[in-house]
């Protein structure tokens, strides 16, 4: 069953007289429980695609359907609601709020979902437990290592149990040991909780650990293959 589908998805940027087709008529389907990576060189359009899939950006043309909702004509507030309810984001630079503790950072999406404080705390601690960071719940981001900070960010992406988790170069700031740990963690979360992951990366080691690799060049799918 598809959790995300795109039809002729297009994003065009205009910079002065230059037109850039960042995403160029792309058709894609991601099934529930998939664990895939999107690869491509810099400027290939992979991050733009991720933003379009996550309703952070709106397409110039074409359609995105997330968990049965057509997002084409939705207002800004409705797109925010989809991001709240159906999408989880993991970024390269973790993007944790420095004034909040680890558990408060994880709670943040639940705040926007208006979940009651006690329930919020319970679910955030549960998410931290899934990523093995229960003992660092009260620490501020400045007191965490890079690997730990990214695990907090993963917990934040999972806490709302979204239909789709989108990760943009999640290991880009990490050394090899931590990259392996994070990828193992994400793979376990996918296996144990059937959580759908789409990971943008240019690191073959990361891509090889997923089960499907979509290669993108010039805004188009160059190849789409299952990993043995």
């Amino acid at each position: 069953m598809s959790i995300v589908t795109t039809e002729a998805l297009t994003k065009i940027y205009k910079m002065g007289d230059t037109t850039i087709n960042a995403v160029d008529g792309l058709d894609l389907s991601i099934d529930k429980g998939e664990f895939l990576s999107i690869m491509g060189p810099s400027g290939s359009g992979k991050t733009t695609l991720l933003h379009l899939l996550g309703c952070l950006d709106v397409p110039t043309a074409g359609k995105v359907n997330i968990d049965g909702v057509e997002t084409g004509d939705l207002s800004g507030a409705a797109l925010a609601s989809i991001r709240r309810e159906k999408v989880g984001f993991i970024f390269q630079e973790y993007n944790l709020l420095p004034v909040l503790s680890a558990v408060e950072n994880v709670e943040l999406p639940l705040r926007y979902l208006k979940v009651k404080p006690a329930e919020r705390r319970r679910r955030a601690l549960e998410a931290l437990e899934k990523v093995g960071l229960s003992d660092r719940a009260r620490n501020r981001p400045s007191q965490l290592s890079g690997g730990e900070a990214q695990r907090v960010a993963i917990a934040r992406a999972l806490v709302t149990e979204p239909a789709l988790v989108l990760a943009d170069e999640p290991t880009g700031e990490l050394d090899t040991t931590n990259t392996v740990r994070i990828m193992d963690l994400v793979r376990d979360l996918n296996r144990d909780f059937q959580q759908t992951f789409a990971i943008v990366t240019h690191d073959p080691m990361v891509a090889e650990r997923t089960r499907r690799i979509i290669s993108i060049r010039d805004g188009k799918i160059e190849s789409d293959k299952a990993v043995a």
Partner: protein
Amino acid sequence: MAFIFRNMWRRKGRTFLTIFGIVVGIFALTVLGGMTARMDQQVKGMKGFITGKISVAPEDSGAHVRMRGGGSSYMDLSTARAIEKIPGVQTASGMVMVQLKSAEGLSAPQMLVGYEPPADGGMFKDIKMSQGRELKAGDTDKAVVGSVLATQERSKVGGPITLKGKTYEVAGIMDATLGPTDAWAFVPYQDGLNTFLAANPFIKDVQLVQSITVLPKPGADIEALAGTIQKDIPGVKTTSPVQAEKQISQMTTIFSAIILGIAFIALFVGGLSVINTMIMSVSERRREIGLKKAIGATTSTILREYLGEAAMIGLFAGAVGMLAGLLAISALNRATHANNVVIFAVTSTVILGPVIFATILASLAGLFPALRAARLNPVDALKEE
């Protein structure tokens, strides 16, 4: 709420300076507001004294409301008798005033007022006696004393009070009006006149009055009656209650406008520093705003968050500035208390006004930066270094 506080304290120095700027403005507003409130009380107290009466003064005596008494022109007591013959006039009471002690700060001077008490009293319509009674026609060597003067002289009804060397028996003590009459003593006309002549030995006229207070008969149109007196009696200037109130209001309005103007300028500067602080905060936190939007915060959520931060700066600075102002007011009032002078009044407006004002001011100042934050495109914001 806790997050708002934590964000405020991220840049302690900057937040402190912004708050300090508003605190100074709010301090000024509270202290000056206290002064205005005190003036307002005095005006209200004065209104109690002028209600239901027409005041008649010599034509060239200038303003009727002579809070400091004195004046260079006088009328003869016979003018009062002539006024009493006009239909609609119940009593016309000649008055003479002598200063007992000069004014200090914004407080009224202590005055001795000699007047002709009406046969059945009723001269102080809106001022009640807290003890004893008003003066009556025929009373001699008796005095009615204002509340402040009574406290200062430790006067008791039936007890003595010495004013300008003459000892009177206290017939009554007036309720506090917070107006200038609280520091006045009222004595029979002849006693007042004798004191006046003793203080002004160059004046030989023996039946002079400085002003005449006219009480209308019940049911008489007081404004029309003031016009009739003005028309029929030569050489006088009448002031009806409506005119008197207008004169007092004009005086206080100008004063209030000046002192509040000063405070508002101080706060305008505070407002600008809130705008500056909030613009800086938004610029520094663009990535965070992008992240919040990515995980589902709406435009209005971000707007509320930043407006809340600006309002909190205003509320906090307002509360601190107001408390500092109250401390100053209390210290200054205590310092002048020994002389029975009250320069500042503390009312609910003096307390709440500046705090509410600072909160609204800071929120308004924060509106533009907050809107800027709320309208950020998440993709652009996330790209920020």
